[in-house]
């Protein structure tokens, strides 16, 4: 699984290093990522026009993907957080929609891995 994730741009070496070499714990936490992201209901908040909730959601995903070094998602959600802060919700939504296909691949890889 880790090799496939690496191929999708996840910096697994850095992530495992952050977990002080504990690859098992890193992998265990990685397996929770799909549920973590799903639970945030990010796109629903955008659809509802509840940008405060959208900010909390993107912010939370930014934190987790950062700690796991899921770099492409971390970059995209960081960008979305800044855009929401600058009162650019449409751009933020676009940023996330752009990353959704890759996000789905990464999550599928974790779920099936």
């Amino acid at each position, binding site marked *: 699984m880790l090799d496939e994730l690496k191929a999708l741009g996840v910096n697994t070496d850095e992530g495992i290093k952050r977990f*002080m070499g504990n690859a098992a714990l890193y992998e265990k936490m990685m397996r929770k990522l799909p549920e*973590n992201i799903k639970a945030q209901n990010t796109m629903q908040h955008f659809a509802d026009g509840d940008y405060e909730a959208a900010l909390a959601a993107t*912010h939370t995903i930014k934190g987790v993907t*950062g*700690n796991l070094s899921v770099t492409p998602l971390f970059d995209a959600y960081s960008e979305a957080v800044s855009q929401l802060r600058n009162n650019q919700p449409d751009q933020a939504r676009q940023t996330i929609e752009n990353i959704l296909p890759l996000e789905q691949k990464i999550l599928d890889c974790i779920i099936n891995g």
Partner: protein
Amino acid sequence: MSVKSDKSILIVDDMETNRALLAMGFTDLYNILEAENGKQAMEIINAHSDIGAVLLDLVMPVMNGIEMLKELNNTGKINHLPVFIITSENSEDTLSQAYSLGAVDVIYKPFNLNFIKSRITNIIELYRHRNELAEVVNEQVEKLSKINQSMIETLAALIEFRDCESGEHVKRICGLTRILLTSISENYPEYYLDKVEIEKIVNASILHDVGKISIPDSILNKPGRLTKEEFEIMKQHTVKGGEILEHIPNVMDKDSYNYCYDICRHHHERWDGRGYPDGLKGDEISIAAQIVALADVYDALTSPRCYKAPFDHQTALNMIYNGECGTFNPKVLDTLRRNEENVKYEHETSAE
């Protein structure tokens, strides 16, 4: 790696991944406590006394990090507990708000555990040291105040020992002084008396007659009227009291010393300037000395002496109101009138 501490670290983050990462970093050094939001965290803090630090996420459901910091401020816990903000937040407003609410440091996600471990461990030890020092200082202050008190009581016991007055005299003076001063503070705000001042004056009143140590037995315990010469020597107990205190200024705090000195020297002054030793007049005499003077007179009248039987309460009051024991401040006399029943009760109960 150092030995595991007896302290706990409380990790507050709604995401398990973030908690697990931090927990892993500190589990070899500290006990780990975890909470998913500020509310849970506050419950844990209230139930544990061993928490050395809080690692706090900002964006959380139920109660977020800023709300929790406010709560820690309201309860005063922030002063003893270092809180680290762990966040991917980079909004300056939020972070400066966190700092102004007492957060000690901000750690950004994603973080390098090895770095933040030393930062957090250092602060925990610093706070532990500071909290322990504060405890030691408090203990010392308490000890000093006890020594203060027992020094005053020791000196008072010495006078009692030599004097023909009963050992209860000092206690009654304290009781009367407290009753009268409390009433003064309620009716005459111009004297700026609060509870703390009143207790200091009450304590100082214990030593009003310390100068009697220096008066010869033949005069102090003479079973009859004093001659004019003897009375002049007797009057010296006020000045001598001040001199004795001047030799031991450091056994009590400055306020207590000032009250003791003033009361020793001036508790025989009178409102019309006809008292001694300095012939002070009116409010040149401190309210503390005026009140102890009245308490002293009342107690002397109502107590048996080698040379006289005690007067009853009402007779003593009448003698004071009639000016037979010198002139007092009208406000002080009004205060006595207002408190006749309390004064009588104090006199009767302490005589038992």
